[in-house]
């Protein structure tokens, strides 16, 4: 049998120290014949691990996409990568509104693609990115491309994880006590939305909005009147929710924009056409009509402070709803008017906008390149390569009021393992 690993480790540690020591000693030595000017002698170093800032307003969080784990964090202001949240490609992620934690709803197996299935919500702190806790849950849907499968309550105390196994349900998790609370059956509905003071709401296949009151031990499910057709003109699952105004904005395949006011019995305003808001003909659901239509992955983003919604639009026939955006349309919700149309050089699939006073738009394409635009002028600020092909997230923090700008420079944390 091979030498026990512990023995080796002990030996290696001594060897490493030995070499480090020897090398350090040599550093003070004068080199035999320096062939070039020698400004300073270079000092031996130790390998360390850095800490990082908590979520910043202009950071983007980009999912890897199919088969590629990790959520890479880039600074929109500099284009630099700041770190990475550890998750599998099957995960859903969420950012604590207080900026203290990253949450990962994930599914893994004990033996790669076989063995025992394990579903859980993992909690990582945001400055050391260390795993703080793992809360087992009964299940979690395995699908990519939807932001509404893992949502947090406005105060960050509760998480709702959508599950489909293939029964439809929602797993409720107490993030304060770090405990699974209960599974709530939710047949025929999905695509979750926070509902402050109540629990959550969800879109249903009968065209209604379900509202689940989770404040009682026995959750109560109520339904709005049907307001859309789930087969003739579906609403995209990736809606956007505005906690400052307690409202949710939806868009349908044909381009109808709906606004729901959240509450125990949400009210849904009559929709309007985003195309008509841009002065072009209304979207049609029948074939052979080519028009501007919404499409892509996470195709819509809202800047809450200003009430502007940015939508990826492409030219096509109905049922082309996965086609990436050829333009970004800037919709002013208050005016019900598309105030700007920004053509793009090549199609992009996902969009997000930062929540500060000088917001940035992030869009990414299938090559994994992020383009950063000034949300006001639509001017391209930079291009960041190899960010990821998946959905983009931003922390729901603005400047200066709510931004957790811990500007103290992160102190390097020396690794507990002695460097060489």
């Amino acid at each position: 049998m091979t030498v026990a690993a512990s023995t080796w480790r002990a030996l290696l540690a001594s060897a490493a120290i030995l070499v480090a020591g020897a090398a350090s000693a040599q550093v003070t030595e004068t080199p035999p014949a320096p062939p070039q000017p020698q400004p300073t002698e270079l000092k031996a170093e130790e390998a360390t691990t850095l800490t990082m800032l908590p979520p910043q307003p202009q950071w983007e969080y980009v999912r890897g996409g199919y088969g590629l784990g990790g959520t890479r964090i880039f600074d929109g202001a500099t284009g630099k990568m700041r770190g990475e949240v550890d998750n599998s490609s099957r995960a859903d992620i969420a950012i604590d509104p207080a900026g203290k934690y990253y949450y990962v709803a994930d599914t893994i197996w004990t033996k790669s693609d076989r063995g025992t299935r394990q579903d859980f919500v993992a909690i990582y702190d945001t400055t050391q990115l260390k795993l703080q806790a793992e809360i087992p849950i009964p299940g979690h849907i395995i699908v990519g491309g939807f932001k509404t499968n893992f949502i947090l309550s406005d105060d960050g105390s509760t998480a709702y994880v959508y599950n489909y196994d293939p029964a439809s349900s929602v797993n409720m998790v107490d993030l304060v006590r770090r405990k699974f609370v209960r599974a709530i059956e939710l047949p025929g509905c999905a695509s979750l939305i926070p509902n402050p003071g109540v629990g959550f709401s969800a879109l249903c296949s009968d065209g209604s909005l379900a509202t689940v009151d989770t404040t009682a031990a026995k959750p109560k499910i109520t339904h709005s009147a049907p307001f859309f057709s789930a087969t003739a003109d579906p609403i995209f699952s990736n809606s956007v929710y505005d906690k400052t105004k307690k409202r949710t904005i939806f868009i349908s395949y044909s381009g109808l924009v709906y606004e729901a006011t959240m509450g125990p019995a949400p009210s849904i305003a009559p929709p309007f056409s985003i195309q008509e808001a841009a002065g072009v003909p209304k979207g049609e659901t029948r074939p052979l009509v080519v028009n501007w239509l919404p499409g892509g992955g996470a195709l819509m983003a809202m800047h809450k402070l200003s009430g502007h919604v940015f939508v990826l639009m492409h030219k096509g026939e109905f049922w082309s709803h996965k086609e990436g955006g050829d333009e970004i349309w800037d919709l002013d919700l208050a005016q019900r008017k598309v105030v700007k149309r920004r053509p793009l050089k090549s199609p992009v699939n996902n969009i997000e906008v930062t929540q500060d006073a000088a917001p940035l738009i992030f869009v990414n394409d299938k090559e994994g390149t992020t383009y950063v635009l000034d949300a006001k002028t639509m001017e391209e600020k930079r291009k960041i390569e190899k960010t990821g092909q998946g959905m983009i997230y931003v922390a729901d923090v603005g400047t200066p009021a709510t931004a957790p700008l811990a500007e103290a420079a992160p102190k390097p944390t020396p690794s507990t393992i002695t460097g060489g």
Partner: protein
Amino acid sequence: MDSSKADVIGERLLRRFAGSSSRRGLLTKLGAVLVAAPAFPLLPVSRAEAQKPDRSVEAKTSFARSAQTKDDTKCDYWRYCAIDGSLCSCCGGAVNACPAGAQPSPISWVGTCINPDQGKAYLIAYRDCCGKPACGQCGCDNTDRETQLYLQQLNNNIIWCFGTSSMEYHCSTAVLVGAAQ
């Protein structure tokens, strides 16, 4: 810096995960029965369509107008009107069979596709083959009548590997279930 892991696993397959969308069907009915949620039709054809099965050129989607019936290793093969993923017929399997070592999911999302030789609509079950790494060949993503997560059986993004020993996605078949009406 221009190489391509994606070339290996297929651009459109990537979109199954990266993109966004959905489907509807058999199970939602069951959900309704069990918990008295709103009911919808058993067959994944909208009620309007079911009442008036218009298969004329004008009623056909862009996919249906150019679909073919000869080559099931191409994305425009008629049965693939709502498929998303690698075609099993390119992976050592067949249009209705998994490659050796992969398990077909007993349930699936469904599509309603028109056979252009007959002008007739058929119900197609897109059974994922599961339990080994992605095949990566012939990635297709067609979206006729494909809806969102609240109509799961009409959503083609979900990894439909239920009741198999592993949920790892390998490829997708297009199994003919029967006439749509």
